[in-house]
Protein backbone atom coordinates (compact mmCIF):
# COMPACT_ATOMS: atom_id res chain seq x y z
CA UNK A 1 0.00 0.00 0.00
CA UNK A 2 1.45 3.37 -0.97
CA UNK A 3 2.37 6.09 1.48
CA UNK A 4 -0.42 8.39 0.33
CA UNK A 5 -3.17 5.85 0.91
CA UNK A 6 -1.73 5.02 4.33
CA UNK A 7 -1.73 8.68 5.27
CA UNK A 8 -5.26 9.26 3.94
CA UNK A 9 -6.67 6.28 5.84
CA UNK A 10 -4.79 7.22 9.02
CA UNK A 11 -6.13 10.76 8.82
CA UNK A 12 -9.62 9.48 8.14
CA UNK A 13 -9.51 7.28 11.27
CA UNK A 14 -8.09 10.17 13.30
CA UNK A 15 -10.97 12.40 12.15
CA UNK A 16 -13.46 9.65 12.98
CA UNK A 17 -11.97 9.36 16.47
CA UNK A 18 -12.13 13.09 17.12
CA UNK A 19 -15.53 13.53 15.49
CA UNK A 20 -17.15 10.42 17.02
CA UNK A 21 -18.20 9.11 13.64
CA UNK A 22 -17.52 5.87 11.85
CA UNK A 23 -15.88 5.00 8.56
CA UNK A 24 -16.62 2.15 6.19
CA UNK A 25 -14.43 -0.93 6.74
CA UNK A 26 -11.00 -0.41 5.19
CA UNK A 27 -11.01 -4.01 4.03
CA UNK A 28 -14.07 -3.30 1.84
CA UNK A 29 -12.45 -0.30 0.19
CA UNK A 30 -8.89 -1.62 -0.03
CA UNK A 31 -9.35 -5.38 -0.37
CA UNK A 32 -5.60 -5.93 -0.72
CA UNK A 33 -4.67 -4.22 2.54
CA UNK A 34 -2.19 -6.33 4.51
CA UNK A 35 -1.90 -6.42 8.29
CA UNK A 36 1.47 -4.70 7.96
CA UNK A 37 -0.15 -1.86 5.97
CA UNK A 38 -2.80 -1.62 8.68
CA UNK A 39 -0.11 -1.08 11.34
CA UNK A 40 1.31 1.76 9.23
CA UNK A 41 -2.20 3.30 9.09
CA UNK A 42 -2.45 3.04 12.87
CA UNK A 43 0.94 4.73 13.21
CA UNK A 44 -0.30 7.66 11.13
CA UNK A 45 -3.39 7.93 13.35
CA UNK A 46 -1.12 7.88 16.40
CA UNK A 47 1.17 10.57 14.93
CA UNK A 48 -1.84 12.86 14.66
CA UNK A 49 -2.70 12.25 18.30
CA UNK A 50 0.87 12.92 19.36
CA UNK A 51 0.82 16.18 17.40
CA UNK A 52 -2.20 17.13 19.53
CA UNK A 53 -0.03 16.66 22.61
CA UNK A 54 -0.97 13.11 23.63
CA UNK A 55 1.86 11.08 25.05
CA UNK A 56 2.35 7.33 24.56
CA UNK A 57 2.36 5.61 27.96
CA UNK A 58 2.05 1.98 26.96
CA UNK A 59 0.60 -0.63 24.67
CA UNK A 60 -2.36 -2.94 24.52
CA UNK A 61 -2.66 -6.45 23.23
CA UNK A 62 -5.93 -7.49 21.59
CA UNK A 63 -7.47 -10.54 19.95
CA UNK A 64 -6.08 -12.82 22.66
CA UNK A 65 -9.12 -15.04 23.23
CA UNK A 66 -10.01 -18.08 21.18
CA UNK A 67 -13.50 -16.72 20.59
CA UNK A 68 -12.29 -13.42 19.11
CA UNK A 69 -9.53 -15.13 17.11
CA UNK A 70 -12.16 -17.46 15.64
CA UNK A 71 -14.46 -14.51 14.87
CA UNK A 72 -11.67 -12.68 13.00
CA UNK A 73 -10.25 -15.91 11.58
CA UNK A 74 -6.71 -15.21 12.82
CA UNK A 75 -4.38 -17.19 14.99
CA UNK A 76 -2.46 -14.40 16.63
CA UNK A 77 -3.16 -11.29 18.67
CA UNK A 78 -2.74 -7.66 17.61
CA UNK A 79 -1.62 -4.53 19.44
CA UNK A 80 -2.23 -0.82 19.74
CA UNK A 81 -0.81 2.18 21.58
CA UNK A 82 -2.04 3.72 24.84
CA UNK A 83 -1.82 7.46 25.41
CA UNK A 84 -2.21 9.53 28.55
CA UNK A 85 -5.54 10.84 27.24
CA UNK A 86 -7.02 7.33 27.41
CA UNK A 87 -6.16 6.72 31.06
CA UNK A 88 -8.69 7.12 33.88
CA UNK A 89 -8.37 6.45 37.60
CA UNK A 90 -10.23 3.95 39.73
CA UNK A 91 -13.82 5.02 40.38
CA UNK A 92 -13.68 7.92 37.96
CA UNK A 93 -16.50 8.70 35.56
CA UNK A 94 -15.75 7.69 32.00
CA UNK A 95 -17.07 10.18 29.43
CA UNK A 96 -18.19 7.56 26.93
CA UNK A 97 -21.03 9.71 25.53
CA UNK A 98 -18.60 12.50 24.76
CA UNK A 99 -15.72 10.44 23.47
CA UNK A 100 -16.78 7.03 22.21
CA UNK A 101 -19.05 5.55 19.54
CA UNK A 102 -20.01 1.94 20.33
CA UNK A 103 -18.07 1.11 23.51
CA UNK A 104 -17.58 -2.35 24.96
CA UNK A 105 -15.89 -3.26 28.23
CA UNK A 106 -13.17 -5.84 28.82
CA UNK A 107 -11.45 -6.93 32.03
CA UNK A 108 -7.70 -7.38 31.97
CA UNK A 109 -4.48 -7.68 33.91
CA UNK A 110 -2.23 -4.66 33.32
CA UNK A 111 1.55 -5.00 33.57
CA UNK A 112 3.79 -2.10 34.57
CA UNK A 113 7.38 -2.62 33.46
CA UNK A 114 10.52 -1.71 35.36
CA UNK A 115 12.94 -2.83 32.63
CA UNK A 116 12.93 -2.64 28.83
CA UNK A 117 11.93 -5.78 26.97
CA UNK A 118 13.56 -6.12 23.58
CA UNK A 119 12.53 -9.04 21.38
CA UNK A 120 12.92 -11.35 19.61
CA UNK A 121 13.70 -14.17 21.99
CA UNK A 122 11.98 -12.74 25.08
CA UNK A 123 10.93 -15.55 27.44
CA UNK A 124 8.12 -15.65 29.98
CA UNK A 125 10.69 -15.56 32.77
CA UNK A 126 12.13 -12.34 31.30
CA UNK A 127 8.66 -10.80 31.16
CA UNK A 128 8.15 -11.58 34.85
CA UNK A 129 11.61 -10.27 35.70
CA UNK A 130 10.91 -7.02 33.85
CA UNK A 131 7.51 -6.56 35.54
CA UNK A 132 7.36 -4.04 38.36
CA UNK A 133 3.76 -4.94 39.21
CA UNK A 134 0.45 -6.13 37.85
CA UNK A 135 -2.82 -4.23 38.30
CA UNK A 136 -6.55 -4.75 37.72
CA UNK A 137 -7.78 -2.96 34.62
CA UNK A 138 -10.86 -2.19 32.56
CA UNK A 139 -10.29 -1.56 28.90
CA UNK A 140 -13.14 0.14 27.11
CA UNK A 141 -12.73 -0.74 23.46
CA UNK A 142 -14.45 1.15 20.67
CA UNK A 143 -14.47 0.93 16.90
CA UNK A 144 -14.19 3.76 14.45
CA UNK A 145 -15.27 1.22 11.83
CA UNK A 146 -19.00 1.18 11.08
CA UNK A 147 -20.95 -1.25 13.30
CA UNK A 148 -17.78 -3.05 14.43
CA UNK A 149 -17.67 -4.70 10.99
CA UNK A 150 -14.01 -5.47 11.44
CA UNK A 151 -11.57 -7.85 9.88
CA UNK A 152 -8.15 -8.09 11.47
CA UNK A 153 -6.72 -5.33 9.21
CA UNK A 154 -9.56 -2.96 10.17
CA UNK A 155 -9.01 -3.30 13.91
CA UNK A 156 -5.22 -3.11 13.56
CA UNK A 157 -5.48 0.13 11.53
CA UNK A 158 -7.88 1.51 14.17
CA UNK A 159 -5.29 1.22 16.97
CA UNK A 160 -6.54 -2.26 17.93
CA UNK A 161 -9.98 -0.76 18.66
CA UNK A 162 -8.64 0.93 21.75
CA UNK A 163 -10.84 3.47 23.52
CA UNK A 164 -10.17 4.30 27.15
CA UNK A 165 -8.82 2.35 30.09
CA UNK A 166 -9.14 2.38 33.87
CA UNK A 167 -6.48 1.12 36.24
CA UNK A 168 -7.34 -0.05 39.74
CA UNK A 169 -5.25 1.39 42.54
CA UNK A 170 -3.62 -1.75 43.90
CA UNK A 171 -0.31 -3.05 42.64
CA UNK A 172 0.85 -6.63 43.14
CA UNK A 173 4.26 -8.19 42.70
CA UNK A 174 4.00 -10.85 39.96
CA UNK A 175 5.84 -13.22 42.31
CA UNK A 176 2.72 -13.34 44.46
CA UNK A 177 0.15 -14.51 41.94
CA UNK A 178 -0.25 -17.34 39.44
CA UNK A 179 -1.37 -15.27 36.47
CA UNK A 180 -2.51 -18.25 34.39
CA UNK A 181 -5.22 -19.13 36.90
CA UNK A 182 -6.11 -15.85 38.67
CA UNK A 183 -9.89 -15.52 38.62
CA UNK A 184 -11.83 -12.52 37.33
CA UNK A 185 -15.35 -11.49 38.29
CA UNK A 186 -17.06 -8.69 36.35
CA UNK A 187 -20.21 -7.00 37.62
CA UNK A 188 -22.43 -4.54 35.80
CA UNK A 189 -24.87 -2.52 37.89
CA UNK A 190 -24.21 -4.89 40.78
CA UNK A 191 -24.92 -8.12 38.91
CA UNK A 192 -22.23 -10.67 38.09
CA UNK A 193 -22.18 -10.72 34.29
CA UNK A 194 -19.11 -12.82 33.60
CA UNK A 195 -16.23 -14.67 35.18
CA UNK A 196 -12.98 -15.86 33.73
CA UNK A 197 -9.39 -16.62 34.58
CA UNK A 198 -5.90 -15.93 33.29
CA UNK A 199 -5.77 -18.82 30.83
CA UNK A 200 -8.43 -17.07 28.72
CA UNK A 201 -5.70 -14.86 27.20
CA UNK A 202 -3.42 -17.13 25.15
CA UNK A 203 -3.09 -19.54 28.09
CA UNK A 204 -1.64 -16.82 30.35
CA UNK A 205 -1.36 -13.02 30.37
CA UNK A 206 2.42 -13.54 30.55
CA UNK A 207 2.33 -15.26 27.14
CA UNK A 208 0.60 -12.18 25.73
CA UNK A 209 3.29 -9.76 26.92
CA UNK A 210 6.04 -12.08 25.65
CA UNK A 211 4.25 -12.25 22.28
CA UNK A 212 4.14 -8.45 22.08
CA UNK A 213 7.78 -8.01 23.03
CA UNK A 214 8.81 -10.55 20.39
CA UNK A 215 6.50 -9.22 17.68
CA UNK A 216 7.64 -5.61 18.19
CA UNK A 217 11.21 -6.82 18.44
CA UNK A 218 11.06 -7.84 14.79
CA UNK A 219 10.54 -4.17 13.94
CA UNK A 220 13.24 -2.98 16.34
CA UNK A 221 10.67 -1.61 18.80
CA UNK A 222 10.98 -2.43 22.49
CA UNK A 223 8.62 -2.40 25.45
CA UNK A 224 9.99 0.30 27.71
CA UNK A 225 10.53 0.56 31.43
CA UNK A 226 7.60 2.45 32.95
CA UNK A 227 5.16 1.47 30.24
CA UNK A 228 1.79 -0.06 31.06
CA UNK A 229 0.85 -3.10 28.98
CA UNK A 230 -2.77 -4.27 28.82
CA UNK A 231 -2.47 -8.00 28.30
CA UNK A 232 -5.87 -8.94 26.82
CA UNK A 233 -9.37 -9.60 28.10
CA UNK A 234 -10.13 -12.54 30.39
CA UNK A 235 -13.91 -12.22 29.85
CA UNK A 236 -16.14 -11.70 26.79
CA UNK A 237 -16.68 -8.14 25.53
CA UNK A 238 -19.72 -6.45 27.00
CA UNK A 239 -21.55 -3.51 25.37
CA UNK A 240 -22.01 -0.59 27.78
CA UNK A 241 -24.09 2.57 28.01
CA UNK A 242 -24.01 5.85 29.87
CA UNK A 243 -25.60 5.47 33.30
CA UNK A 244 -24.16 2.02 33.93
CA UNK A 245 -21.47 1.17 36.42
CA UNK A 246 -19.02 -1.70 36.46
CA UNK A 247 -16.79 -3.37 38.97
CA UNK A 248 -14.19 -6.08 38.53
CA UNK A 249 -12.19 -8.18 40.97
CA UNK A 250 -9.16 -10.29 40.16
CA UNK A 251 -8.18 -13.01 42.63
CA UNK A 252 -4.94 -12.06 44.39
CA UNK A 253 -4.63 -8.76 42.49
CA UNK A 254 -7.45 -6.38 43.39
CA UNK A 255 -10.41 -4.47 42.03
CA UNK A 256 -11.31 -1.65 39.66
CA UNK A 257 -14.53 0.32 39.31
CA UNK A 258 -15.93 2.76 36.83
CA UNK A 259 -19.11 4.61 35.94
CA UNK A 260 -20.09 5.55 32.42
CA UNK A 261 -21.50 8.97 31.66
Amino acid at each position, binding site marked *: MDQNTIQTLGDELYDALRGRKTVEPLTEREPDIRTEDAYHVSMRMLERRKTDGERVIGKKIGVTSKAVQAMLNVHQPDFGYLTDAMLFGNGEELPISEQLIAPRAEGEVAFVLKRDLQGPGVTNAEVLRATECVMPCFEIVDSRIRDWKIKIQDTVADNASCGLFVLGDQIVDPRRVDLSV*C*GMVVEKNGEVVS*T*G*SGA*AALGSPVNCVAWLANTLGEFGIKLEAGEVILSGSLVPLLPIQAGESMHLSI*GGIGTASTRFV
Partner: protein
Amino acid sequence: MSTLSADQIESLSEHLESAELQARAVHKITDDYPDLDFEDAYAIQWATRRRKEARGNRIIGLKMGLTSRAKMKQMDVEEPIYGFLADYFQEAEGAEVDTSKLIHPKVEAEIAFVTKAPLRGPGCHVGQVLAATDFLIPAVEIIDSRYENFRFDLPSVVADNASSSRFVTGGGMMSPRETDLRTVGVVLEKNGDPVEVGAGAAVINHPASSVALLANMLAQRDEEIPAGTLILSGGITAAVAVEAGDNVTMRAQGMGSVSMRFV
Protein backbone atom coordinates in the same frame (compact mmCIF):
# COMPACT_ATOMS: atom_id res chain seq x y z
CA MET B 1 -48.49 -31.20 46.36
CA SER B 2 -47.49 -34.67 45.56
CA THR B 3 -49.23 -36.25 42.59
CA LEU B 4 -47.79 -39.76 42.78
CA SER B 5 -48.52 -42.75 45.01
CA ALA B 6 -45.77 -44.35 47.11
CA ASP B 7 -45.70 -47.28 44.68
CA GLN B 8 -45.30 -45.00 41.68
CA ILE B 9 -42.42 -43.20 43.41
CA GLU B 10 -40.64 -46.49 44.15
CA SER B 11 -41.14 -47.73 40.63
CA LEU B 12 -39.85 -44.50 39.01
CA SER B 13 -36.85 -44.54 41.34
CA GLU B 14 -36.09 -48.12 40.31
CA HIS B 15 -36.52 -47.21 36.64
CA LEU B 16 -34.03 -44.34 36.86
CA GLU B 17 -31.54 -46.19 39.03
CA SER B 18 -31.51 -49.13 36.62
CA ALA B 19 -30.78 -46.70 33.80
CA GLU B 20 -27.84 -45.40 35.86
CA LEU B 21 -26.48 -48.82 36.78
CA GLN B 22 -26.85 -50.17 33.25
CA ALA B 23 -25.59 -46.96 31.59
CA ARG B 24 -28.67 -46.74 29.43
CA ALA B 25 -30.50 -43.56 28.39
CA VAL B 26 -34.24 -43.31 28.95
CA HIS B 27 -36.83 -40.71 28.01
CA LYS B 28 -37.73 -38.14 30.60
CA ILE B 29 -40.21 -39.30 33.19
CA THR B 30 -42.46 -36.28 32.80
CA ASP B 31 -43.35 -37.60 29.33
CA ASP B 32 -45.35 -40.31 31.14
CA TYR B 33 -46.22 -38.26 34.24
CA PRO B 34 -46.78 -34.69 33.03
CA ASP B 35 -48.08 -33.56 36.43
CA LEU B 36 -45.04 -34.80 38.32
CA ASP B 37 -43.92 -31.94 40.55
CA PHE B 38 -40.87 -30.92 42.55
CA GLU B 39 -42.00 -32.75 45.66
CA ASP B 40 -42.52 -35.98 43.71
CA ALA B 41 -39.14 -35.52 42.07
CA TYR B 42 -37.27 -35.20 45.36
CA ALA B 43 -39.29 -38.13 46.77
CA ILE B 44 -37.99 -40.24 43.86
CA GLN B 45 -34.41 -39.05 44.46
CA TRP B 46 -34.62 -39.90 48.19
CA ALA B 47 -36.08 -43.32 47.36
CA THR B 48 -33.04 -44.00 45.17
CA ARG B 49 -30.76 -42.84 47.95
CA ARG B 50 -32.42 -45.24 50.42
CA ARG B 51 -32.17 -48.08 47.92
CA LYS B 52 -28.44 -47.53 47.53
CA GLU B 53 -27.95 -47.38 51.30
CA ALA B 54 -29.94 -50.60 51.72
CA ARG B 55 -27.57 -52.19 49.22
CA GLY B 56 -24.58 -51.18 51.36
CA ASN B 57 -23.46 -47.99 49.59
CA ARG B 58 -22.48 -45.15 51.84
CA ILE B 59 -23.73 -41.62 51.10
CA ILE B 60 -20.59 -39.53 51.39
CA GLY B 61 -21.68 -36.18 50.11
CA LEU B 62 -24.06 -33.83 48.38
CA LYS B 63 -23.99 -31.76 45.25
CA MET B 64 -25.62 -28.61 44.00
CA GLY B 65 -26.74 -28.25 40.40
CA LEU B 66 -28.05 -25.46 38.16
CA THR B 67 -26.12 -22.93 40.22
CA SER B 68 -25.14 -20.60 37.40
CA ARG B 69 -27.38 -17.71 36.47
CA ALA B 70 -27.22 -18.78 32.83
CA LYS B 71 -28.43 -22.30 33.65
CA MET B 72 -31.15 -21.06 35.99
CA LYS B 73 -32.43 -18.73 33.28
CA GLN B 74 -32.22 -21.49 30.70
CA MET B 75 -34.28 -23.83 32.90
CA ASP B 76 -36.49 -20.97 34.12
CA VAL B 77 -35.90 -21.66 37.82
CA GLU B 78 -35.29 -19.42 40.79
CA GLU B 79 -33.36 -21.91 42.86
CA PRO B 80 -30.66 -24.48 42.21
CA ILE B 81 -31.25 -28.20 42.79
CA TYR B 82 -29.39 -30.76 44.88
CA GLY B 83 -28.43 -34.41 44.64
CA PHE B 84 -26.49 -36.94 46.72
CA LEU B 85 -23.09 -38.56 46.21
CA ALA B 86 -22.66 -42.29 46.92
CA ASP B 87 -19.26 -43.76 47.79
CA TYR B 88 -18.75 -45.41 44.40
CA PHE B 89 -19.19 -42.03 42.61
CA GLN B 90 -15.67 -41.14 43.66
CA GLU B 91 -12.79 -41.81 41.28
CA ALA B 92 -9.24 -41.45 42.53
CA GLU B 93 -7.08 -38.52 41.50
CA GLY B 94 -5.32 -39.48 38.26
CA ALA B 95 -7.76 -42.34 37.76
CA GLU B 96 -8.82 -43.96 34.53
CA VAL B 97 -12.56 -43.34 34.38
CA ASP B 98 -14.37 -46.14 32.58
CA THR B 99 -16.70 -44.51 30.04
CA SER B 100 -18.40 -47.83 29.27
CA LYS B 101 -20.14 -47.43 32.64
CA LEU B 102 -21.43 -43.99 31.65
CA ILE B 103 -23.89 -42.77 29.02
CA HIS B 104 -22.71 -39.36 27.77
CA PRO B 105 -20.42 -37.90 30.45
CA LYS B 106 -19.56 -34.20 30.77
CA VAL B 107 -17.09 -32.55 33.14
CA GLU B 108 -17.43 -29.36 35.19
CA ALA B 109 -14.88 -27.55 37.37
CA GLU B 110 -16.05 -27.01 40.94
CA ILE B 111 -14.86 -26.15 44.42
CA ALA B 112 -15.66 -28.91 46.94
CA PHE B 113 -16.34 -28.13 50.61
CA VAL B 114 -15.63 -30.63 53.39
CA THR B 115 -17.53 -29.81 56.57
CA LYS B 116 -16.37 -30.24 60.17
CA ALA B 117 -19.65 -29.27 61.83
CA PRO B 118 -23.30 -29.85 60.91
CA LEU B 119 -25.13 -27.16 58.94
CA ARG B 120 -28.82 -26.80 59.54
CA GLY B 121 -31.33 -24.39 58.00
CA PRO B 122 -33.49 -22.45 57.78
CA GLY B 123 -31.51 -19.23 57.94
CA CYS B 124 -28.14 -20.83 57.25
CA HIS B 125 -25.80 -18.15 55.88
CA VAL B 126 -22.41 -17.84 54.25
CA GLY B 127 -20.64 -17.09 57.55
CA GLN B 128 -21.91 -20.31 59.12
CA VAL B 129 -20.89 -22.26 56.04
CA LEU B 130 -17.36 -20.88 56.09
CA ALA B 131 -17.04 -21.45 59.85
CA ALA B 132 -18.25 -25.05 59.47
CA THR B 133 -15.89 -25.76 56.56
CA ASP B 134 -12.89 -27.91 57.40
CA PHE B 135 -11.24 -27.29 54.02
CA LEU B 136 -11.82 -26.62 50.34
CA ILE B 137 -10.45 -28.81 47.58
CA PRO B 138 -10.66 -28.63 43.75
CA ALA B 139 -13.08 -31.08 42.18
CA VAL B 140 -14.09 -32.19 38.73
CA GLU B 141 -17.65 -33.39 38.65
CA ILE B 142 -18.53 -35.88 35.92
CA ILE B 143 -22.22 -35.46 35.26
CA ASP B 144 -24.17 -37.97 33.21
CA SER B 145 -27.87 -37.44 32.72
CA ARG B 146 -29.79 -40.65 32.35
CA TYR B 147 -32.02 -38.85 29.86
CA GLU B 148 -31.56 -39.07 26.12
CA ASN B 149 -29.38 -36.23 24.78
CA PHE B 150 -29.27 -34.54 28.21
CA ARG B 151 -32.79 -33.31 27.46
CA PHE B 152 -34.89 -32.88 30.57
CA ASP B 153 -37.10 -30.57 32.55
CA LEU B 154 -36.60 -29.64 36.16
CA PRO B 155 -38.60 -32.40 37.92
CA SER B 156 -37.01 -35.02 35.67
CA VAL B 157 -33.45 -33.96 36.50
CA VAL B 158 -34.17 -33.76 40.23
CA ALA B 159 -35.58 -37.30 40.16
CA ASP B 160 -32.41 -38.36 38.30
CA ASN B 161 -30.28 -37.25 41.26
CA ALA B 162 -29.33 -34.00 39.53
CA SER B 163 -27.35 -35.94 36.86
CA SER B 164 -24.77 -37.01 39.50
CA SER B 165 -22.45 -39.69 38.31
CA ARG B 166 -18.77 -39.51 39.28
CA PHE B 167 -16.35 -36.97 40.74
CA VAL B 168 -12.64 -36.57 41.36
CA THR B 169 -11.11 -34.40 44.06
CA GLY B 170 -7.43 -33.63 44.38
CA GLY B 171 -4.76 -31.01 44.30
CA GLY B 172 -4.31 -28.94 47.45
CA MET B 173 -6.58 -28.34 50.40
CA MET B 174 -7.24 -24.75 51.34
CA SER B 175 -8.70 -23.17 54.44
CA PRO B 176 -11.75 -20.99 53.78
CA ARG B 177 -10.01 -18.36 55.92
CA GLU B 178 -7.15 -18.02 53.46
CA THR B 179 -9.03 -17.21 50.29
CA ASP B 180 -11.72 -15.12 48.71
CA LEU B 181 -13.79 -17.80 47.03
CA ARG B 182 -15.57 -15.29 44.81
CA THR B 183 -12.43 -14.56 42.86
CA VAL B 184 -10.78 -17.99 42.92
CA GLY B 185 -9.99 -18.67 39.29
CA VAL B 186 -10.28 -22.05 37.58
CA VAL B 187 -9.08 -23.42 34.27
CA LEU B 188 -10.53 -26.61 32.81
CA GLU B 189 -8.21 -28.26 30.30
CA LYS B 190 -9.15 -31.05 27.93
CA ASN B 191 -6.19 -32.75 26.29
CA GLY B 192 -4.01 -29.78 27.24
CA ASP B 193 -6.32 -27.15 25.78
CA PRO B 194 -7.85 -24.63 28.23
CA VAL B 195 -11.46 -25.13 27.10
CA GLU B 196 -13.26 -23.34 29.93
CA VAL B 197 -12.30 -20.66 32.46
CA GLY B 198 -14.19 -19.01 35.28
CA ALA B 199 -14.15 -17.73 38.85
CA GLY B 200 -16.05 -18.65 42.02
CA ALA B 201 -18.69 -15.94 41.64
CA ALA B 202 -20.15 -17.94 38.74
CA VAL B 203 -21.76 -20.10 41.45
CA ILE B 204 -24.63 -17.88 42.66
CA ASN B 205 -22.12 -15.10 43.44
CA HIS B 206 -20.16 -17.18 45.96
CA PRO B 207 -19.71 -20.95 46.26
CA ALA B 208 -20.45 -20.79 50.01
CA SER B 209 -23.87 -19.25 49.30
CA SER B 210 -24.62 -22.39 47.31
CA VAL B 211 -23.83 -24.53 50.38
CA ALA B 212 -25.99 -22.25 52.59
CA LEU B 213 -28.86 -22.71 50.13
CA LEU B 214 -28.36 -26.46 50.27
CA ALA B 215 -28.70 -26.43 54.07
CA ASN B 216 -31.85 -24.32 53.77
CA MET B 217 -33.36 -26.57 51.10
CA LEU B 218 -32.64 -29.68 53.19
CA ALA B 219 -34.29 -28.02 56.20
CA GLN B 220 -37.58 -28.16 54.30
CA ARG B 221 -37.36 -31.95 54.73
CA ASP B 222 -36.06 -31.59 58.28
CA GLU B 223 -32.63 -32.78 57.15
CA GLU B 224 -29.22 -31.22 57.76
CA ILE B 225 -25.73 -31.40 56.26
CA PRO B 226 -23.80 -33.66 58.66
CA ALA B 227 -20.21 -32.95 59.71
CA GLY B 228 -17.73 -34.67 57.41
CA THR B 229 -19.85 -34.19 54.29
CA LEU B 230 -18.20 -33.52 50.93
CA ILE B 231 -20.20 -30.93 49.00
CA LEU B 232 -19.75 -30.18 45.31
CA SER B 233 -20.91 -26.58 45.31
CA GLY B 234 -21.80 -26.22 41.61
CA GLY B 235 -20.10 -25.84 38.25
CA ILE B 236 -17.92 -22.75 37.84
CA THR B 237 -17.52 -23.58 34.16
CA ALA B 238 -19.91 -24.83 31.54
CA ALA B 239 -20.03 -28.64 31.23
CA VAL B 240 -17.68 -30.09 28.61
CA ALA B 241 -18.41 -33.41 26.88
CA VAL B 242 -15.70 -36.08 27.20
CA GLU B 243 -15.10 -39.47 25.66
CA ALA B 244 -12.65 -42.35 25.91
CA GLY B 245 -9.14 -41.11 25.14
CA ASP B 246 -9.61 -37.65 26.68
CA ASN B 247 -7.61 -36.44 29.61
CA VAL B 248 -8.91 -33.64 31.79
CA THR B 249 -7.06 -31.36 34.18
CA MET B 250 -8.60 -28.68 36.32
CA ARG B 251 -6.47 -25.98 37.92
CA ALA B 252 -7.78 -23.86 40.78
CA GLN B 253 -6.07 -20.70 42.00
CA GLY B 254 -4.00 -21.44 45.10
CA MET B 255 -5.17 -25.07 45.19
CA GLY B 256 -3.10 -26.80 42.54
CA SER B 257 -4.69 -29.14 40.05
CA VAL B 258 -6.60 -32.39 39.70
CA SER B 259 -6.56 -34.72 36.68
CA MET B 260 -8.11 -37.87 35.26
CA ARG B 261 -8.20 -39.84 32.05
CA PHE B 262 -11.22 -41.30 30.33
CA VAL B 263 -10.85 -44.79 28.92
